[in-house]
């Protein structure tokens, strides 16, 4: 896109007018900045208190607190990270520990970072962190010993960091600088150094699987996104202790932003694909089915590669849909019959093939799939269609594809829009779940009335307490559910595995005659001092909306509380940018609004809006509605308990 005004200058002008006037434009401008120095300058602009004030509370921007630690000078990183995160829909509050203070900061109880209560703490080390422990860099035995010991040090550090700061800890493997290797003259010793270094990094990567709430990034993956660059100029290293190249730090900031997005529930869920010259080469309507190019020689190979990527994303839980300017029956025939198609009709949860403008089609797709429009990623080779989508639906992520199809798949994959912290069984099954959803919709359309349909579904609900097998999924449900999420409060795997005294976490599973929907709801419960129960958060997957599951859960919970002699159940609604549809949920279920004095304060409620507009409710358990007749419940008496 050509600009009369460079993006950075436009951003400065926008800031003078007030960034909140057009946050979509702010994010779009950030998306156009590629050079790390420009991105750093943009981040500096956005980090200023005035800009932060302008953007806080803006719809579409979630708040997030980040702590940064390192062994070299990282003063560009907070700004780069701010620019990347605002672009990706998060308004961060970033705090850094001092130069090379990473170990001291955590060993001394995190004096700089503790009161920041970071959602995410990132540690970026360079080889000085190792060589600082070795008297003689030529003493290869000592280097090997230090490399062998370092992962243990990092593991202890990570555990202590997590204990002190909570949230997610993000480590990164450590690159060996050329000078450290090149000072050795013989190849045998060089090889021993490299081998020790690779072993060390492999063990660092293992820490992610061994400790809760820990993600380990590989510096080689980040460098690949930085054009292969890791280290900065030697002059900046000498002048300022700056080891990493701005390009590497930019790619690292992008990766941290993706991790934060996955953690804060902003991962995308659905890939909407154009067909002609995107998923296949050629124009179906003009060239005919036989002329389409999929596989074989380039460019067919490039389109096939994109199909293979879509297939693999779907296998990991990404929902696929088609938005194409074509006749519907022609498209369905082509997808079903072309012998080189990697994807098949069953790969797609929804298809919109017609001649209407694509934004309207994509809006309908979101409704049909019951997904927020900001969960969609739109991929189309046509710059005109992309421009139209950006203008009409800025909340949809529109991918700026490279001009040559050869790069389509690599470009879409590198964006990391669908990144999650850990994949669950439910994620892998999602494509099947959405197909079952389509069959349910068909049954609904054929049923005479809604209740008959619901009866006919044969729904069965099972409530289960959190345990080793479902903790990951419960944390993910709290993290990824945006619409039916009554307080916006997220819980990490660690929060759930080690709940505070008197607290408990529950999940609910729903099956019906079309299959198992998996875990579809999560509930956080705690005990009040005077014996009451408190719902700290209740989330319900959008897949099972309109089936009365939430009514059933509340009825079960209220009954359980009464049976165990609790005087009341307390709850709160905390508005977030997405949950307004459910603002009256507790009122509809017989709760009454409680004056704030009636409710114990001090709850750590995440405030996505930046404003304290939380509403408190209580239910005195006198009159409890029956659960819906069409949902069978396994062990309805034993479902919930607060200690």
């Amino acid at each position, binding site marked *: 896109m050509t600009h009369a005004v*460079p993006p950075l*200058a436009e951003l400065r002008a926008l800031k003078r007018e007030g960034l909140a006037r057009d946050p979509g434009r702010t994010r779009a401008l950030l998306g156009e900045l590629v050079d790390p*120095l420009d991105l*750093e*300058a943009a981040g*500096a602009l956005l980090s200023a208190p005035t800009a932060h004030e302008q953007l806080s509370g803006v719809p579409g921007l979630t708040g997030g607190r980040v702590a940064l630690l390192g062994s070299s000078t990282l003063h560009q990183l907070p700004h780069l990270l701010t620019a990347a995160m605002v672009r990706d829909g998060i308004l961060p509050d970033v705090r850094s520990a001092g130069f090379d203070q990473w170990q001291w900061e955590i060993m001394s109880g995190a004096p700089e970072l503790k009161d920041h209560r970071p959602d995410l703490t990132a540690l970026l080390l360079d080889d000085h962190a190792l060589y600082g422990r070795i008297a003689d860099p030529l003493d290869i035995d000592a280097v090997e010993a230090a490399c062998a010991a370092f992962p243990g040090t990092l593991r202890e550090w990570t555990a202590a960091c997590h204990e002190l700061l909570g949230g997610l800890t993000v480590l990164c493997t450590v690159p060996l600088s050329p000078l450290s290797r090149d000072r050795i003259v013989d190849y045998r010793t060089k090889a021993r150094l490299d081998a020790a270094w690779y072993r060390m990094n492999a063990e660092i990567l293992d820490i992610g699987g061994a400790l809760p709430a820990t993600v380990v990034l590989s510096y080689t993956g980040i460098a690949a996104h930085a054009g292969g660059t890791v280290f900065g100029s030697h002059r*900046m290293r000498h*002048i300022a202790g700056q080891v990493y190249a*701005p390009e590497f730090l930019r790619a690292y900031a992008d990766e941290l932003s993706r991790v934060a997005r996955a953690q804060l529930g902003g991962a995308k869920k659905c890939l909407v694909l154009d067909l002609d010259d995107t998923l296949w080469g050629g124009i179906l309507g003009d060239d005919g089915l036989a002329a389409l190019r999929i596989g074989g020689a380039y460019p067919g190979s490039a389109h096939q590669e994109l199909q293979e990527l879509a297939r693999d994303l779907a296998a990991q839980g990404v929902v696929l849909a088609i938005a194409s300017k074509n006749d519907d029956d022609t498209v369905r025939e082509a997808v079903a019959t072309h012998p080189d198609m990697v994807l098949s009709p069953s790969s797609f949860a929804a298809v919109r093939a017609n001649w209407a403008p694509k934004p309207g089609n994509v809006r309908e797709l979101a409704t049909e799939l019951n997904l927020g429009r900001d969960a969609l990623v739109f991929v189309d080779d046509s710059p005109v269609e992309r421009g139209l989508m950006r203008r009409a639906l800025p909340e949809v992520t529109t991918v700026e594809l490279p001009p040559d199809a050869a790069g389509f798949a690599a470009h879409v994959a590198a964006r990391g829009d669908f990144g999650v912290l850990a994949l669950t069984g439910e994620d892998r099954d999602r494509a099947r779940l959405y197909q079952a959803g389509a069959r349910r919709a068909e049954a609904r359309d054929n049923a005479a009335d809604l209740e008959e349909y619901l009866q006919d579904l044969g729904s069965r609900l099972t409530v289960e307490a959190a345990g080793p097998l479902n903790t990951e999924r419960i944390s993910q449900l709290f993290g990824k559910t945006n619409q039916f999420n009554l307080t916006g409060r997220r819980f990490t795997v660690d929060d759930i595995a080690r709940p505070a005294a008197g607290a408990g976490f529950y999940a609910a599973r729903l099956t019906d005659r079309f299959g198992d929907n998996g875990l579809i709801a999560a509930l956080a419960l705690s005990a009040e001092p005077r014996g009451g129960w408190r719902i700290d958060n209740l989330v319900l997957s959008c897949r099972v909306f309109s089936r009365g599951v939430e009514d059933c859960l509340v009825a079960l919970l209220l009954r359980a509380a009464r049976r165990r002699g609790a005087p009341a159940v307390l709850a709160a609604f905390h508005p977030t940018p997405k949950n307004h549809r459910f603002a009256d949920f507790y009122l509809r279920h017989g709760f009454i609004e409680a004056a704030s004095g009636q409710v114990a304060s001090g709850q750590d409620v995440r405030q996505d809006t930046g404003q304290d507009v939380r509403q408190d409710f209580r239910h005195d358990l006198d009159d409890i509605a029956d659960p819906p007749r069409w949902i069978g419940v396994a062990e309805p008496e034993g479902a919930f308990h607060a200690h």
Partner: protein
Amino acid sequence: MPIDSERLDSERLDSGTLDPGPLDPERLDYDAVAVNVTRIVADLLEVDEAGLTPATLLADIEGWDSVNQMRLLLHLERDLAASLDYDRFLSAASLGQLTSLARHTMAGLA
């Protein structure tokens, strides 16, 4: 004539054409260098360009610190597509001296 006392081309500043683009070393435009240096300093430190003169001491600009000094070095070098003499960069106390260094660098005299 001492370079510090040279005035910026205020007409260019006022006309709104604040981005003269990268400098062409074949055709040195000293005024453009001055405008660029001033703009980069103003942008990086988020101060009003109009308040900056060649006599402005860098240390007097709000927000000036060692981190911003390094940022300025990187941005100036990118804009000039040349490496600045580090000692002379560190000893440049005023905007005028910085501009002078940039001009000398462009002319290959630094």
